[in-house]
């Protein structure tokens, strides 16, 4: 199993909780008050509630249903219905390997998370979910990059040679933006967009809008290719 980029580190502030999916793995990603990040199976062992609906208190994630508190090692240490009880150490959700690197949260559901190597000086811009498969998204991005000379020079590099990380050069031919792909479900693609730190605020806004237009184009292509031929 590979390590997947599931979000931008800047989008998960201390005390924040988010949900992510890799294939059939539904997970809760959360950051403690002091900044420790964790990725767990998205299911409280007590009554199956999604932990991504939970809330952070100090160094614990509490389930939204009955407030069971789990520490950063995923051990349940407090059951509010029985404040005096020392919970059995067996009460813990499954944990996944998670690391932060280059502004990205990386998770591996079946091994140690090993982030991909990325160019230097990139900053997180935004994450966008597209209702299309990964190859449709990648093609829409590549063709849109070739028709926007104000932002890009048209060259698209496949950084890790499997179309899951693309870099688009800026008009000077140097570092531009980097797009990381993730496909949580068959018909849905998540892209995480990183931009070189030399871009101005206005350029970043333009890139952000460009991403939106690419999403719309990718979803349009997907919809028209999904159209069922009328019966003859």
């Amino acid at each position: 199993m590979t390590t997947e980029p599931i979000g931008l580190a800047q989008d998960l502030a201390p005390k924040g909780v988010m949900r992510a999916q890799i294939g059939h793995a539904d997970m809760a990603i959360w950051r403690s008050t002091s900044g420790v990040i964790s990725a767990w199976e998205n299911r409280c062992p007590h009554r199956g509630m999604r932990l991504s609906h939970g809330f952070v208190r100090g160094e614990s994630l509490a389930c939204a249903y009955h407030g069971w508190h789990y520490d950063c090692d995923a051990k349940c240490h407090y059951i509010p219905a029985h404040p005096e009880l020392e919970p059995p150490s067996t009460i813990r959700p499954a944990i996944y390997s998670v690391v932060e690197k280059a502004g990205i949260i990386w998770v591996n559901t079946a091994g140690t998370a090993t982030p991909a190597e990325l160019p230097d000086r990139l900053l997180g811009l935004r994450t966008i979910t597209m209702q299309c498969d990964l190859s449709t998204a990648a093609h829409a991005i590549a063709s849109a990059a070739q028709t926007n000379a104000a932002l890009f020079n048209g060259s698209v590099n496949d950084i890790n040679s499997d179309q899951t990380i693309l870099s688009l050069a800026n008009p000077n031919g140097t570092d531009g933006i980097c797009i990381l792909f993730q496909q949580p479900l068959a018909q849905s693609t998540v892209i995480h967009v990183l931009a070189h730190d030399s871009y101005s605020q206005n350029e970043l806004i333009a890139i952000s809008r460009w991403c939106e237009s690419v999403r719309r184009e990718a979803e349009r292509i997907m919809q028209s290719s999904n159209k069922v031929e009328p019966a003859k």
Partner: protein
Amino acid sequence: MTGLEHAQKYWYPVAMLGELNDGQTKNTQLLGTEISVCGSNEESVTVSSAGQLLAVQCQYDHVWTTFSDDPYPLFAIPEAEEPGRRFVPCGVVRVSCSPLRAVENFLDIAHFPFVHTGVLGAEPHTEVYKYDVQIDEKHDEVFATNIRFFQPQASKSAEGSIETEYIYRVPAPMAAILYKTCPPKPEAMDVITLFVQPIDEETCDVWPWMALYDDTSTMADLIQFQQLIFVQDRSILENQLPRKLPIDPGHEIPTKADLTSIAYRRWLKKRGAYYGALEKI
């Protein structure tokens, strides 16, 4: 007997009497089968499925039907005969979860401070004290007693926070009855029920119904209070994994506060009530 065959032997609510409208057909589903409710009142109402008429009875302000020619009798609620009570059908809430998960949540008190914050519970009053659960052999019902819980706003009629007493009855796999402290009439108990219409194994329509001593609140306020509670519950019920209720021990980890839930799951298993249940993991 399959879980479906077992479930087909019970009566289920499919409409409120008050919503019947002459000349209008209500199309709905029961246990995965399309059904139609027609008629304008208790006398004229019919329920049919694929052109066949089903048995019908009107009780507790609802229309009940069954697929069986020889169903278990509809459970009794003696308080429905008591003069002075107000009977409040609260409408319907569609929930994407197993009908059994909806009932189990209704039997749970430990979630009050977290899901119904400031109404049915509040931190730091989270402790669930020891209570009793037994199977009432005579009626074959789950019966939980001596439940006490701190509640900031126990009901529309409560003035400020009180320690509330609860008693639960589970008279059928998809119905539960709660008796709780009645703030304006301490010698009596309010009745709040959860009647569940199983649409299919992972979808249900929940019909709360109440029989209260409360002469001051408006009907709209009483219904609004109960609807708020159930909409809060829905945010939990639609996020439990798996959607079916794991009926065998091992998949979920209960604690002492879950005695009613543990008894409910065992009782379901013993009678073969597997519709909406996850059997083997």
